[in-house]
């Protein structure tokens, strides 16, 4: 998106221009809805996150300092909203603390690269909430375990364990998917 166009649009939104607000929504809703779908188990949950996220965005718009990418700022709000929403339904705890040796093991999801986006999305959505959140944050957003631990208020080792468990679960689902 063009930063100047963003700035102009945000300025209009801050002045209470409802048309500008709708314009901003139309511009970013599809991409943010994509984020919501990754963190939610179902479409209805994703819709809730989308609504909550935009309400937060408009209420926090004054805090945007035009110092970085507006889309990046939006994405962080939606990720935080999604995490909060998912956390209401589940605890980000792992029942099994796995050894460092296991959790730092190599890549075992080569099969994913052969799937389409919709197929991967379906697999990710079927993961338990905690696994799904860590998988998204680590594999797609690119956060480190340290950052994820801070965001989810868990330990780094729990984050690693969740990721390992998510991969294991995906591998099982991938096998089932191939068999079908």
């Amino acid at each position, binding site marked *: 998106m063009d930063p100047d166009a963003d700035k102009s649009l945000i300025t209009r939104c801050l002045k*209470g221009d*409802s048309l500008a*607000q*709708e314009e901003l*929504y*139309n511009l970013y*809703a*599809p*991409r943010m*809805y*994509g*984020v919501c*779908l*990754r963190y939610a188990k179902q479409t209805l949950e994703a*819709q809730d996150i*989308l*609504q909550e996220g*935009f*309400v937060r965005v*408009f*209420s926090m718009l*004054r805090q945007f300092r035009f110092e970085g990418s507006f889309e990046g700022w939006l994405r962080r709000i939606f990720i935080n909203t999604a995490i909060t929403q998912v956390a209401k339904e589940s605890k980000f705890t792992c029942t099994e603390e796995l050894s460092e040796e296991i959790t*730092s093991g190599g*890549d075992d*999801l080569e099969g*994913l*690269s052969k799937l389409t*986006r919709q197929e*991967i*999305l379906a697999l990710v959505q079927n993961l338990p909430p905690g696994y799904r959140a860590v998988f998204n944050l*680590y*594999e*797609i957003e*690119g956060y*480190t*375990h340290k950052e994820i631990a801070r965001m989810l208020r868990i330990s780094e080792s729990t984050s690693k364990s969740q990721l390992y468990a998510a991969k294991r679960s995906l591998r099982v689902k991938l096998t089932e998917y191939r068999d079908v």
Partner: protein
Amino acid sequence: MSEENIDNRQRPHIRALFQDFEADPPPQSWDLIRKRMEGSTWGSRETRSLTDLLAWFGPMNRLYPTLAVAGLALIALVVWVGVTPSHHIRGQAVDGQENLVRGTAYLFRVHDLHRPLDSVSLYQQQELDSAGRFNFKTSKNGAYLLRIHLRPDSGKVGQIYHGYYDKQLHWNNATLIHTDSLKESYIVKMPGAFPR
């Protein structure tokens, strides 16, 4: 780059797939968001004014001078309230054993104690209550003259307490009150006097 970060970037395929992933949101979503914003405090004029105000104070170069001025104003107010005297001049108008209830109490300021009667000015007045009581509140130090004037239906028409002379106030029979910063309350006794 740490081992963790290397691991984190092993599947560019997945990340590339989802970085720009877009999906059409449900058509009613915007209406629901708009309604939520209208229902929430975000949309209200009052809160907008408040957020505008807070935004104005956002830069520190505005906030600190404003806080300093507000602090000084507060200190000045506290000092002013502290040094401003508050006096109560109260009492009861009686004639012997009889309470004088039908009348008005007048409080005059005396500007020149050497010529009190010529220099007084009416400061406050109030009706006597059912027991003949009056209670004036003043914040100015100085000399005051108190006068009770009875109504025609009082049975003591035209009499002025505590001078007791018809339609005329005699200074040497008047009650003169000097207020100062040390006392808050002045009880004025209006004894029954004798007509001369």
